[in-house]
Each structure stands twice: as C-alpha cells, then as structure tokens.
C-alpha cells in the first residue's frame, strides 16, 4: 500500500517538473558570426546578474535566468503576456568554438555573449601569387 503511494507521488513530481519546464520562456536572440567568433544577444528583461546562470561544456551552451519583480502584497494579475518567471534556452556549439573563454555581459535586460573561435580556426586570407 505504502509502495503504491510512493510511486504515485513520484510520478506527480515528475509531471510537475515537466510542466515547469514547459512554462519557461524562450528568450528572443540575435546571433551573428564574424572572423573571430560568434556573438549572441538575448532579451531577458527582469533578470539581474545574480539570477543568471550560463553553463557551457565542450559542445553546448545553456542560458537560464529568473525574473525578479518585487510585487506589492495581495496583487491580482489582471493581464499577463509573460506567464513564467524563468527564461531558458540552449544551443549546441561546434568544435571550432572556444566554450571555455565565453565572455558575458548583461545590461538593461539584454544578455550579450561573445564566443571566440580557437586560434587555429580563425580564417586566414590566402594570397594568390602572381608570377
């Protein structure tokens, strides 16, 4: 009897987690590449520096940020475009990108990430010899 209960609780926890994941906001991003690396701009209004979590490993980049709005007491939501407190988005990185040296800055709710390329992958101009 107890066992059955346990399973049921665990299942509902899993469902709960899945629901929370679905409710995250996918921040709008601009991504561009130049000779030395890739730059990402992401709109994450309401996220302060201490509530932003950027994780990278060799082949992926994940951005998670929590919105922190000080709300007055007994507030009723009248209208809400934004219906989650969490931004989340992840990207896969390719091998020529240097995931260990990503630079990040946050200003007015816009996150800027600079992902440099490994030195040996920076394009070299090939001169054509004319004899």
């Amino acid at each position, binding site marked *: 009897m107890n066992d059955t209960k346990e399973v049921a609780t665990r299942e509902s926890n899993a469902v709960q987690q899945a629901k929370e994941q679905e409710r995250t906001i996918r921040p709008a991003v601009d991504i561009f590449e130049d000779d030395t690396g890739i730059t990402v701009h992401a709109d994450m209004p309401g996220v302060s520096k201490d509530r932003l979590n950027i994780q990278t490993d060799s082949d992926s980049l994940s951005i998670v940020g929590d919105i922190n709005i000080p709300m007055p007491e007994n507030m009723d939501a009248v209208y809400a475009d934004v219906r989650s407190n969490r931004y989340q988005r992840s990207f896969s990185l390719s091998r020529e990108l240097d995931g260990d040296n990503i630079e990040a800055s946050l200003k007015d709710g*816009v996150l800027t990430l600079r992902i440099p390329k490994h030195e040996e992958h920076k394009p070299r101009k090939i001169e054509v010899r004319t004899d």
Partner: protein
Amino acid sequence: MFGNLGNFDNSLFDEFRRMQRDIDQLFGATSWPSSIRAVARGSYPQVNIGSNPDQVDVYLFTAGVDPETMDISIQQNLLTVAGERKLVTEEGANYYRKERYDGSFRRVVTLPDDVDPDKVDASYRDGILHIAIQRREAAKPRQIEIK
C-alpha cells in the same frame, strides 16, 4: 501518403488548446474581456498588469531600451507608452538569427476608472519599466454608518 492531416487536430492540438485554456483560467483571462486597444499576444513590449485596492501596477518588458527615450503619458485612465528600440546591426557579420524586435513601439493600456492620473510613479530596472498608478481614496471600500 500523409494520411488525413485533419486527424492531428484531435489529439495533440486539443491538448495544446486545453493547456492554453488552463493557463487562461489560472490568470483569470476568461473573466476579463480583452481590451479593444489590446495588441496581439507576443507583441513588443510584453506587458503584465496587476492590481490591488491601493494601486495598479503595469510592467513593460522593454529590454535594451534607454528609459530616457521612452514617452510615458496618462490621460484619465489611458496609459500610453511609446518608444523606440534601435538595434545596431553589425556590418560585415553573418547573421543566423534576428528574432529581437527592432523599431518603434507604442502600447496603450486601459486602466480602471478610479486611478489617479496625478499619482503615477515610473521606474526602470533590468529592462523592465514599472509604472505604478495610485487609485483614488474614494474608490476604496468604506464603511457606511446608519443614522
């Protein structure tokens, strides 16, 4: 070859619709009809509005906009916020994604009738413009004595 595409409508999309309805109910969207000045969901900037008996709070998710350039005005119970977000396009770079809104915007919010247009406070932090509008004293519930 693809079968009847209409069949998709029964399972997956019903589920989405049900979810949307649940969310709407959770936030009371069904009890508040949408304003005639409302814009499509997802338009820039996104807006959240909350209220309590003392004040109405409007939050505009205006990331990357210089607050000095925003024009906020209130006429009776109509709150208008207009501004422009200018994104710098990097010359000579290859763009893969351009999802962020670029250009001017304007949003008009209809507030309850009892707000006091003289008591408005606006602040900007982390890309969110927060406008708090006090409600009139007279509008607050009050005890009536029987003589």
